[in-house]
Each structure stands twice: as C-alpha cells, then as structure tokens.
C-alpha cells in the first residue's frame, strides 16, 4: 500500500468501517444478492419431526421474547409456526415473559393460518407469571389457568378439552434469548420432544443439551429461520436478513485483514526507523 492509502486508512478508519457496515446492511435490501443457504442437520431434524406430526396432534409453543428480540428470534418462529399450521396440528401458545402475548399476536398476524380457527385449532393462554415457578406450575398441571388471554373460559375451548396433562403435548417449542436452563429443567422429560428457538448468542450454551439428547433440536436465530424457510420453500424475512448478514460479515472480515496489513506495515516501518 502506498503512503496516501495508508494515510487515508489511518485518518478515516472509523468512517470507513461505518460506511462498509451501512452498505452491507442496506445493499441487499435494495438489490437481493441471493446467497445460497443450506440447511444444517439440526434444522432438517426439526423440520422432519414436524413434517411427521399428524393433524390434530397437540403442540405447546411458548413465546418468551419481547419486541427487543424479535429480529433475532421472530423470523425463525414465523417459519416454524407456519409449518405447524400447515400440518394442521393443534397449538397452545403460552408465555412466561410479560411481552409474550402481544408477540404471539404479531406472529399470528404475519403468517398464513391455513384456515385455523381460534379455540378450535389454536389458543393463546397468555402470560404466566413467576418465571421458573410459573413454568413448574404449568408443567405440573396445564389446566390450572381458568381463562385464556382474551378472558374466555378454557373449558369452552375445543383445543384445551384435549389437554389432560403436560405429557399430552407431542412437541414443545420454547423461544427465548436468555440461557436455556429454566425451560430444560422444568420441561425436559415431561414432554418427549423439545425444539428450542434461541438467539445465536446462546448457541454454545444450548449445544450440550442437544448432544445429551435432552433437547431434540434447536433453531439458532435468524440463521436457523433462514434455513427453515428454505426447507419450507417459503423465502421470507429471515432469508433477506441472512443475505445482508453474509455480506456484512464478509466486509467485516475484509476490514480485519486490511487492518492487520496496515498494522504490519506500520510496525515494520517503525522497526526500520521510519515514522
């Protein structure tokens, strides 16, 4: 690199990084690049299990994230819940965080319900307080709640008539951004199959649970969502986000390499007695 380039890189490195990241984030939104996404074995495993569910099987979904985490968890949840509705299973939505019920409504508004009707095919039970104590209470007896999120008596809802105990659920899908321990402690062994939708940051924390067989599979963030959309053949927001993520991370890697080259050149120049 010549002196002029070095000077520009040294003086305006912050602006260069900002512009590169801005281009990486915005460009695929205007011009889709269509980077290939291949599904990892864990996503395929989750997809295949749901594909084998029979219409009318009971599935429990806990939406345990707020709007602040939607970008990470939401696209993956949209894809997997969309698949559940296409399989015509009966879904019980519950939340162990306060923001959960409106996020459930947002989720349902963004997907195709495939003709499913509230109360007959799916139900929103709403927020259950107490964090882990609430989870333990629900896992012990899911019928402790007397009314759903909208105040309807759960005895009058067809979906809830099928639920007698927690073991009646064929699948549990918790979605959250925090550590997975509380969900696993209270539901592992009580529901046979758990597929967790998590933030990519929790990937290393959740992998041991999958390896030990206590979790059936997981969907890590938007990447997992993008893979699931590919399997569903319904490209959506997760695929678009993955396009931009791939480009931005490539640019960041290029910046790291350039930064190291500049650093090497500067140190060798200093060693030779230059400024």
């Amino acid at each position, binding site marked *: 690199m010549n002196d002029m380039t070095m000077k520009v890189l040294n003086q305006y490195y912050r602006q260069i990084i900002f512009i590169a990241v801005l281009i990486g984030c915005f460009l695929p939104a205007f011009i889709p690049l269509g980077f290939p996404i291949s599904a990892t074995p864990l996503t395929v495993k989750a997809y295949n299990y749901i594909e084998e569910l029979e219409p009318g099987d009971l599935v429990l979904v806990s939406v345990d994230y707020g709007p602040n985490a939607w970008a990470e968890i939401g696209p993956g949840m949209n894809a997997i819940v969309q698949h559940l509705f296409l399989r015509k299973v009966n879904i019980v939505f519950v939340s162990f965080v306060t923001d959960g019920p409106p996020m459930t409504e947002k989720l349902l508004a963004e997907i195709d319900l495939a003709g499913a009707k509230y109360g007959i095919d799916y139900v929103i039970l709403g927020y259950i307080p107490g964090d*882990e*104590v609430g989870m333990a209470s629900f896992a012990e007896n899911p019928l402790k*709640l007397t009314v759903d999120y909208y105040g309807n008596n759960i005895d009058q809802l067809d979906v809830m008539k099928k639920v007698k105990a927690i073991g009646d659920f064929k699948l549990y899908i918790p979605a959250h951004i925090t550590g997975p321990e*509380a969900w696993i402690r209270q539901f592992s062994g009580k529901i046979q199959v758990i597929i967790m939708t998590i933030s990519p940051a929790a990937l290393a924390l959740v992998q041991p649970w999958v*390896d030990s067989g206590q979790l059936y599979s997981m969907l890590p963030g938007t990447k997992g969502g993008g893979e699931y959309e590919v399997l569903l053949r319904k490209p959506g927001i997760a695929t678009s986000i993955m396009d931009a993520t791939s480009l931005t991370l490539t640019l960041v890697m290029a910046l790291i390499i350039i930064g190291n080259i500049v650093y090497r050149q500067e140190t060798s120049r200093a060693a030779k007695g230059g400024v």
Partner: protein
Amino acid sequence: MDILTSIIIALLTLMAWSMLYRENVFYNLVESLIIGFGMGYLLYIMITTLGKILFTPLMEGQWLLIIPTIAGVLLFTAFIEKYRFLSRWGVAAIAGSGLGFAVSRAIPVQILGQAKMFYLDFSTAGIIDIANWLIISITAITTIVYFTFTKEHKGILGNMSKIGRWSMMVAFGATFGSTIGGDLTYVIERCIFLSRPPQVYLLIPAAIVILYDAMRRRKK
C-alpha cells in the same frame, strides 16, 4: 400494516438512530417514549394477570390463595421503616419457592442428564464421535479443575487448570462471535424495513437534516 403506522415506526427508528450522529432532542423523546410505554404496558399486564390468576379464583372460593396474597402485600411494607422486617417474609417466599423448584430439577436434569454425554458406545462409534467424546471429557474435567480451589494449582493440577482456562476462552470466543452475528440482525432487520416504501422516502429528509446540522456546526 397501514401507511401511517409504517411512517410512525420508521420515524421512531430514525429518531433512535439519530444518537449515532450526536445526542439530540429527537433521541431523548424516543427514549422517554420507550420507557413510558414499557412501564405502562408492564403495569397493565400485571394488573390483568393478577385479576386472572388471583382475584377471579379468589372470588370463586379458592381461599388458599389468601396466603400468597398476604405474602405479596407484605412486600409493600418495605416502604414503612417500622414494619420493613415484614417484607422479608415476602422476599423469603419468592426466593425460597424459586430456589426449591430450580434445585429439585437441577440434579436429575442438569447433573445426571448432562452426565449421559460421557457415555459412548465404542463398538458403534466412529472416529469423529470418539474425537468429540475426548474433547468433551477433557474440557469438562479441566474446567471443573479450574474452579476447584481446595488445593493450589501447581504441577498436574496447574496444567489441567490451564487447559480448563483455554477451553473456557474458546467457548466464550464462540459465544462472542455468535453474539456479534446476532446483534447485526437487529440493524439489518431495521434496514430492510426502512428500505421499503413509503418509509424509504424518510431517509432523504433525515440525511438532509443531519447534513444541515453538520454544516451549521462547522460554520460556528
């Protein structure tokens, strides 16, 4: 989503992002809005939940619920100096039940369940499985050694503790890398939203306002 809602959301997003340029009144406004709406919603959900899980069952004759109700009300005695000690009963009930539920399931699920990972059937395992088993066993044991303080970390114990530290650093590095990748999606999701009409047209006046302010400040 109708046009007005999209524009309001886009405006709030741009107001929040204006902090990247510098501290300003638009950012302060959106910050106050988030806190206000957040607290308001929390209060609403708490009251409706109390109605659903406490008041309604109480009215229906589930009188045992009076015990947790009293424990909950005792928490408010923290505001009266003379009776502050009573709030500890409420805190004790919350902490005790939480700990009890967590610990009772921790042994079968977290300890015994995770210990299953150490079992490997060598007659059917492939090379990758054996390599994974070795890595899991070495990193798990050495990390436990790192947190064992009953003996000074010298000799074999010192070397094992060093391997444990490196294992944790690899795990933290992987977590940090995935966190950065995950955090990027927040910005990208907003960029995708802002790139769609009608909200995309707001980007031009936003850029003009920032440029005008930058030039004005330079002149000063």
